[in-house]
């Protein structure tokens, strides 16, 4: 977790920006290759259930992660592998959740993108779209009660999730309470197969902001520099106590909704348009152009990251699966109030 400083001008800030950019790029690369690995594991039957990739959204996601620091709150969504890693998740914990390791944070109870460590401000999404935003609000309000200041919460959502009542209620709630919430909308043009034209009728999602009385910024989600600036500013603004901001990023999902989906419905024109650019390539070009890295360095990083992933996966694959007989089948923490009825406990042995 690195904090971006975004006032341009000074040499110091230029150096810091370069450092942040490089860090964010590393998380993008790590996320892309990790996602690819999950996809491969899924194809070979090693992952149960779905696999959901963030391909094409790594710049936005990594920018979010690196803009936050310890004590902040992050509620990622399905396409946020990069942001999760940048916020501090280890490759191991990501893999543990996908592979159902008993040692992972979800202990095999929940899987794939449904992972996090709430006590560390890293919220494990439930599937219901929009539902995490008000949870972030609650943590931020608790900070206020506890007189912890200067923390920020980011919730990620997609274009489709803007249609949920939960989105509306939570954004309004944050605005009324003037909470330091940054709500990042990754407008990737589709919600599963549904194009934005069937999802909303506003000219631009940014037009929603005045209706909540929150600030707004729009950003090219394929450009890491732009994302770092936009999210960095929004976070700085919230951190300074200036209330919630909406960030609308335009980009394209460069994969299926999940790995089961060939995404044949995506308009080919979008793919060749600027929003269809691969943010990872764009970032690499930028690195080379800025002379922050050359082709050899990029190749080295890639093999380092590949190695890191392979090692982590190999380790996690040796970890134990959850054992149903050792499992404590209890949904509440108050042991004395939990009940198991005899009739529900017929011994299957």
């Amino acid at each position, binding site marked *: 977790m690195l904090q971006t400083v975004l006032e341009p001008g000074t040499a110091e800030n230029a150096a810091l920006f370069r450092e942040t950019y490089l860090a964010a790029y590393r998380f993008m690369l790590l996320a892309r290759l990790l996602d690819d690995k999950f996809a491969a594991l899924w194809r070979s039957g090693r992952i149960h259930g779905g696999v959901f990739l963030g391909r094409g959204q790594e710049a936005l996601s990594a920018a979010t992660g690196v803009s936050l620091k310890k004590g902040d709150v992050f509620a990622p969504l399905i396409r946020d592998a990069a942001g999760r890693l940048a916020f501090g998740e280890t490759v191991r914990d990501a893999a543990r959740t996908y592979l159902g390791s008993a040692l992972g944070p979800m202990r095999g109870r929940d899987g794939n993108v449904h992972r996090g460590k709430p006590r560390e401000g890293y919220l*494990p999404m439930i599937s219901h779209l929009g539902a995490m935003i008000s949870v972030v609000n609650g943590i931020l309000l608790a900070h206020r009660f506890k007189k912890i200041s200067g923390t920020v919460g980011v919730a990620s959502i997609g274009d489709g999730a803007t249609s949920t009542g939960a989105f509306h209620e939570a954004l309004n709630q944050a605005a009324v309470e003037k909470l330091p919430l940054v709500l990042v909308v990754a407008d990737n043009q589709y919600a599963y197969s549904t194009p934005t034209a069937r999802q909303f009728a506003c000219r631009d999602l940014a037009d929603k902001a005045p209706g909540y009385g929150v600030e707004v910024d729009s950003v090219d989600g394929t450009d890491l520099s732009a994302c770092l600036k936009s999210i960095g500013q929004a976070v700085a603004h919230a951190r300074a106590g200036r209330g919630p901001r909406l960030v609308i990023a335009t980009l394209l999902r460069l994969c299926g909704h999940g790995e089961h989906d060939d995404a044949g419905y995506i308009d080919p024109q979008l793919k060749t348009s600027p929003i269809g650019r691969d943010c990872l390539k764009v970032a690499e070009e930028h690195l080379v152009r800025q002379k922050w890295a050359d082709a050899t360095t990029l190749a080295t990083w890639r093999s380092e990251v590949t190695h890191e992933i392979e090692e982590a996966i190999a380790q996690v694959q040796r970890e134990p699966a959850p054992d149903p007989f050792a499992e404590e089948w209890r949904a509440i*923490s108050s042991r004395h*109030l939990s009940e198991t009825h005899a009739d529900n406990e017929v011994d299957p042995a």
Partner: protein
Amino acid sequence: MSVTYLEAIREAQAHALRDDPRVFIYGQDVGAFGGAFKATKNLASEFPGRVLDSPISEDAIMGLAVGAAIEGMRPIVEMQFADFSTVGFNQIVNQAATLFWRTNVPCPITVRLPFGGTSGSGPFHSQCMETVYAHYPGLIVLTPATVEDAYSMLLEAVAIDDPVIFCEHKFLYYHLKAERLPSEALPVGKARIAREGRDMTIVAYSAMVHEALEAAKELTPEGWEVEVVDLRSVKPIDTDTVMASVARTGRLLCVGEAWSWGGATAEIIARVVTEGYGLLDAPPQRLNAKDTPVPYHPNLWAAHRPTARAIAAAARKLLRL
């Protein structure tokens, strides 16, 4: 001095706010106004900044409570009426109820649901929602029937490390009175023998306890001694106390104001017959509200829900079996 069921709820909240800095209250009109039923009267001024009016956003209200609970607070949420919790349903059953199991992080929230029928309130201000919440793992569902329990169970609810659905019956708010607030109490999870008897057991909870007690009284001159068990909480259910009572009386009538299908009455019968079949001298019976929405008109309402008279009639039938 005397204290009503509603005042007990207010006092418990005042007590919790006083004793525990982690407690705050959130809900529509709970602040300066003191809540639609005045259950938070004066609390906003006694505890500045800790009793917050919310927008009309039940989903976000519950989501916020979960976030605050994660961060170590102990939110008390007031739903203006239980019926409106349907629009916060998802956050209750999928966010709050699953948090501990998924992440090992407890979720101490008290959701106050002013619930149950009162004359003239109609289909959307009268509902009993304990059934749908009790169905979900991860929730505790309390149904106090007395002033004392309203107080002590609400205090305990706030102290419990899990989401508690606190069903407070609107019918009992004003006219149920006690001499004073209790200093001791049965813990949550224990049922109470509200009246001892020999010939049959009526299991009830919340407002129905009082109808059952009245029915029991009605049957006394006829020579019947009816035991009344006040469940106090419908999740967990104190099956042991129910079984012990049935073991004594041999007869069981379960009474619930909720609808019949899958209600607490079905659950209790299922537990008693699966685990204590031999205890019964006659088939267990249940009495519930009729299977329609709750009617507005007092005449219809009185016929829709179980009353002392209807319970007595059901009991008589069962005693003759």
